């Protein structure tokens, strides 16, 4: 693994225990800016816990987390979004009866007008314009005024990402963005992520090896809460242990 200079994200010996259960232990890695890194591993390996730690939803019980050089272990979750870390969820987590536009605009609002109960929010055109820009960036301009719950699954996943873009994050944590998507939608999502990756750092949890190969130059493998491999896709695909516990014999494509 090559050392990273000026990492935007650095975790050292990061760990999280729940009572007697250790969900994550001794994870150390540095992530450079503007890269797309994939995180793979069996279910229960600690990927979601890792993301929860990186997004502030959980506090580490051991080790440290530094974002842009700043120690995040005591920063409250609400501040993470403001500092530039955003996360999307594996199970679509939207505001169901609000429109796509309102979903994004509400998220943008979190940075500015949280307790303002006097201004008319319709008049805050800056928010609306920015929301439309984001909808455009994720390809949902045509669905602007539809309730989120009525969107097709792939569109909901795209909206999910749109909401996490609201904070204009420097670091985007995406938890299985293509969950439930077919090949065509997955292709669209890959194109979107490539576009987004041009100006941001992205960490991605996924199961679809084909997609990961097209997107990331670096893969981390978690198993039983530990980091068991960290390298380029070809290094990972050749790694015996990774093949044993996760990839299988066909390089991750599932068929013999």
């Amino acid at each position: 693994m090559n050392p990273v200079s000026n990492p935007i994200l650095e975790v050292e010996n990061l760990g999280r225990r729940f009572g007697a259960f250790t969900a994550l232990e001794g994870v150390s890695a540095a992530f450079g800016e503007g890269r797309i890194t994939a995180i793979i591993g069996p279910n229960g390996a600690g990927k979601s816990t890792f993301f929860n730690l990186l997004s502030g939803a959980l506090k580490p019980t051991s080790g440290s987390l530094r974002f842009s050089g700043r120690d995040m272990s005591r920063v409250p979750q609400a501040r993470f979004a403001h500092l530039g870390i955003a996360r999307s969820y594996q199970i679509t987590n939207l505001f169901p009866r609000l429109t796509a536009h309102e979903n994004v605009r509400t998220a943008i609002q979190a940075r500015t007008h949280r307790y303002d109960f006097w201004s008319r929010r319709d008049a805050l055109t800056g928010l609306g314009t920015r929301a439309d820009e984001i909808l455009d960036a994720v390809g949902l301009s045509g669905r602007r005024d539809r309730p989120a719950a009525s969107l097709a699954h792939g569109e909901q996943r795209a909206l999910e990402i749109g909401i996490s873009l609201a904070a204009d994050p420097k670091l985007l944590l995406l938890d299985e963005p293509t969950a439930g998507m077919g090949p065509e939608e997955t292709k669209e999502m890959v194109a979107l992520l490539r576009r987004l990756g041009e100006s941001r750092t992205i960490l991605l949890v996924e199961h679809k090896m084909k997609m990961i190969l097209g997107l990331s130059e670096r893969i981390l493998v978690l198993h039983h809460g530990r980091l068991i491999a960290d390298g380029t896709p070809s290094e990972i695909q050749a790694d015996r242990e990774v093949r044993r516990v996760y990839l299988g014999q066909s390089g991750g494509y599932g068929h013999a």
Partner: protein
Amino acid sequence: MLEIDRLDAWYGPSHVLHGLSLEVRPGEILALVGRNGAGKTTTMKAVMGLIPKVAGSVRFLGEDLLGRPAHARFPLGLAYVPEDRRIVPGLTVRENLKLGLLRAPASIKEGPAIAEIAETFPRLAERLDQTAVTMSGGEQQMLAIARAMIARPKLILLDEPSEGIMPVLVEEMGRLFVALRERGVTLLLVEQNVEWALNLADRAVIIDQGAVVHESSAAALRADTAIQDRYCAV
């Protein structure tokens, strides 16, 4: 074995299936592919009697299904593994498996049946007395399949079994399905992982906008990239 003839289905005012017709032949693995929203899951649910508003005919081994309540399918030899698995989280693996035996024919005894499952699914064998909720997604999927298999059904319907499952388990699942076919069990597989499904199946049917648009051997479809692009965009 399973004959679906001009099936229509509605979700409230939405007309989702339009005169869909297909057949599943005994002893084969049939892959049902198509885009999100094409109607694949709806077709399965309609066969299993979970869609209230349907028209047309579905016959299993000559018996009409649509006129019967949903719970009549199991005694006929039809099993279903839904997309969201639906295992009971608070019960152990063993107890979940026993659920699969609830209305099984008397010839199937619990002890030997569970032992057989344990042999086929070593991962489950290790966890027989573990609560289902503590298992990983892949293991739960295996449990859902095991529960469907335990009463020796003739036809198993599986809705996106590989979704969200890690590659090494998907491989295992593939081997399992082939072994099942060797034992004479018929499988109807809805899948978005078209590559994997076509490698496994004998025949493939493409559904688009609620109707069948293509039908061929799996090998033929694997080779026909034009059609794949059009309807599944592999």
